[in-house]
């Protein structure tokens, strides 16, 4: 049994409610137990930190302090939102790196009768827990409706793999966790070089033209590579690419139609859930056409054998993995 404390974050019951619904649909097949932190508050997103220091970290730390009171069966906090995950992880890390910050934040918490000893919780993102704790094997076992034929680009976004205080991810630039998970669901995963490029963050609110440029880069490259949809792990990424795609099209005079779903929605579908159960349909850029590709009967196609390397071609180096031993590197 996998038990965790859940920090949902504000968007999970509003703009990203599809994320919450689909998450609820997969806890049972994966034997996942999520206990919500009581009376959690907003993490401050990327805004609070830009205004002040101690209040911003105290705001975040209140959640950590509350979670610390619920650690009877687990000390791992799971956040499905990348920004929330980063803020919680960052507060925990900096309160240790700068003890004076830690002391002041605790002084503020004390005013509310709370305290938090930095380092006592593990802050992790939902996909981290799914890939490394639940495991790809268990996920593969739960798949009843493989997504074969669905061409997806995995979009990890920025705040998940970076700055990565606790070294949880396979890479900062091209992490493979989401690729691996989508492959386990049977989807056709397209190598997406922009997988950790920025969606614009809060720039959709304060500098829309800057944000449109970033959204355009992501969507046009995904389209260029033949993706039928993008798959994300972060409410802000989903919101920016989904809700602002239309405006972006107006701005550039383009006509992209690139749906973006949460990875949990695809997990739900692969586990045999109905589209309505996993929040499909609330996205503004409809995923209907894309999902038709797995709705229709697609004969199982044999993967074509890799063509024999032409003689004049030069061999490629092996791909590097984080866990590769130093010795193997260069003989």
């Amino acid at each position, binding site marked *: 049994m996998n038990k965790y404390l859940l920090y949902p974050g504000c968007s999970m019951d509003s703009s990203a409610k599809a994320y919450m619904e689909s998450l609820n649909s997969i806890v049972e097949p994966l034997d996942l137990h999520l206990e919500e932190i009581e009376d959690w508050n907003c993490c401050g997103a990327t805004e609070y930190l830009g205004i002040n220091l101690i209040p911003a970290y105290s705001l975040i730390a209140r959640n950590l302090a509350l979670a610390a009171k619920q650690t009877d069966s687990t000390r791992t906090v799971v956040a499905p939102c990348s920004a929330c995950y980063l803020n919680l992880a960052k507060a925990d890390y900096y309160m240790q790196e700068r003890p004076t910050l830690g002391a002041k934040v605790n002084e503020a918490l004390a005013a509310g009768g709370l305290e938090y000893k930095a380092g006592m919780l593990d802050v992790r993102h939902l996909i981290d827990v799914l890939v490394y704790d639940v495991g790809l094997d268990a996920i593969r076992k739960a798949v009843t409706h493989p997504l074969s034929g669905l061409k997806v680009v995995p979009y990890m976004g920025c705040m998940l793999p970076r700055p990565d205080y606790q070294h949880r991810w396979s*890479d*900062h*630039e*091209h992490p493979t966790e989401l690729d691996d998970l989508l492959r386990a669901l049977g989807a056709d995963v397209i*190598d997406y*070089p*922009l997988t950790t*490029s920025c969606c614009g963050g809060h720039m959709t609110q304060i500098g829309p033209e800057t944000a449109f440029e970033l959204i355009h*880069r992501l969507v046009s*490259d995904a389209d*260029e590579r033949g993706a039928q949809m993008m798959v994300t792990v972060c409410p802000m990424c989903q919101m920016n690419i989904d809700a602002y795609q239309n405006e972006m099209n107006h701005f550039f005079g383009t006509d992209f139609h690139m749906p973006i779903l949460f990875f949990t929605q695809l997990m739900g579908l692969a586990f045999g859930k109905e589209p309505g159960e996993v929040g499909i349909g609330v996205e503004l850029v409809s995923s209907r056409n894309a999902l038709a590709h797995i709705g229709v009967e697609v004969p199982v196609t044999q993967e074509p054998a890799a063509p024999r390397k*032409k*003689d*004049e*071609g*030069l*061999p*490629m*180096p*092996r*791909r*590097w993995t984080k866990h590769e031993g*130093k*010795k193997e*590197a*260069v*003989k």
Partner: protein
Amino acid sequence: MTERVGVYVCHCGSNIAGTVDVVDVANWAAEKLGRQGVIIAREYKFMCSSLGQELIEKDIKELGLTRVVVAACSPHLHEKTFRTAAKNAGLNPYLVELASIREQVSWVHSDKAVATAKAKAVVSGAVSRVIENRPLEEIKVPINPNTLVVGGGIAGIQSALEIANAGFHVYLVEREPSIGGHMAQFDKTFPTLDCSACILTPRMVEAGTHPNITLLTWSEVTNVAGYVGNFHVTIKKKARFINEELCTGCGICQEKCPKKVIDDVYEAGLGYRKAVYTPFAQAVPNFPVMDKENCTYFIKGTCKACEKFCPTGAIDFNQQDEMLHIDVGNIVLATGYDLFDARRVSNYGYGRLPNVFTSLEFERLSNAAGPTAGNIVLRDGKTVPKNVGIIHCVGSRDKNFNNYCSVICCMQGLKFAHLVHERTGATVYNFYIDMRTAYKAYDEFYQRVLEEGTLFVRGKVAEVTDAARNEREKGRLIIQVEDTLAGKQRRIPVDMVILSSGLQPRADAKEVGKLFGISCSMDGWFTEKHPKLDPVATMTEGIYIVGCAQGPKDIPSSVAQGAAASARVLDKILQKEVALEPIKASVDSALCSGCRICNGLCPFNAITFIEDDKVTEINPALCQGCGTCVAACPAGAISGTGFSNEQIIAQIDGLMMKNLEPVEA
């Protein structure tokens, strides 16, 4: 017997006397330390001058001093001076003790009263200690005139040749099938653009045929015992599956071998070799080796094409690894470097984007004897690039990877720019943080490459991507960088990217260091005895480090170090014997309880347990004198000369003024 101690307090001009009341210190010593045996205490302007030394020598002879304390500077400066003076006067040099009242007192304190008081304590400590000193003799051991050189790159070859040419025997051990090292992979060498093979192969042949050099390739050192002058080395000669007596190096076996393997070593992964192979045409020795892991016969039990076609019957599938035991007096380590694994910098796309190459790959690409016969082409094997970007500092000067500067990359980048320009006419960009061309004729080469029209962008490249943003970028590699001199971000589309990967210590440098009893720096390079004044020696006597094993360096420096180490080795050989410091540990077998606590403590393997007698013994020649075992022995059976318990305890008591008369408050 009561010792007769003389105390000599140095003024060092005003260096000491300016802060310490030296007259007071001398008078105090004569008065208060009399019970300790001090019979004379003098102060003098410069004790280290010949007059000062004569003063001591005269007192030793005339007053019959048995112990001498000189309160002056650090023992690291003048201990030897005063020991020699004592020796000249007939006193064992180890009965002299220095009290450092300059570096430890006058130079670091300003209050005269406080400084004088501390100087007295320091003198008191030295007096108490010197009484416990015992006469010691330097240990002399003979030197075996044979030398082991490990690593057959240019540094090792140079070192071996120097010693061999002087008439002494050298064992040159190389773990690859041929000597030559990284230099054999290069096409041209900077800044003169000499053909690498043209200058290297004559040296390789000379080393391979030299009557004084025993060449052991496809071999590795597995064990080292002994000490300077007397090392016992075990070498594993890996089975080649080729009878070297019969093989003529004709190459038919390689031709007939049906198994093609990617050559990760010599061709840097960019080309193929066979399962039986010599890495390159000019290999020394010219015998091939069989790569057991890839040979079809060893995998499937059938094939033997090589055996069938070998005209001399030299193929021997039954050959076994062989263990050789040799004795040498000195060891030179020239184990070289590994190339930084550029796949770790994932934002540069090596391993993901086909047309990103490493520096070693490019060396092979541009080499006339390489997989493309020197044609600089993309990974498709045919397209000539029109735009090429060369990225400096890949994995170097970066806290995420290696902190240090890899020294050669700037010049290497310039060399690549020149070669690309010369052979393809492509537009070439160099992306650098700082241009470092500090060596003879190096900056001139930079000027030349500038003249040729290479474009320079000062900025560490942020990423190499194939995610195009416009038509101009489509289908190409885009180098995204801040042009820091223009203050603007640029995206430069190119066809080929070359990563000037840094150098890093061999993956097994730590284990190799342990094998030879030398240490590595934090970065993993072998640590030299002194970074400036003794860069080729190590803290372990008789072991020398040359070339990139000691740190990143170019060919001229590697050659210079190879030669320098040989001079040191020859110096040792010609002395015929070596004097070892008599600071050693020894076991009193009567006290040893055989508990073996000390057995695991010695990193120099000086401690052995004698099963028959159930006691531990220490080999004085191996012992380096650290004293760790002395401190650990629960029975007090181990004593350390020069730093005995008695000496140290006495010094503590002395420093705490427990030796005064009458006891002062």
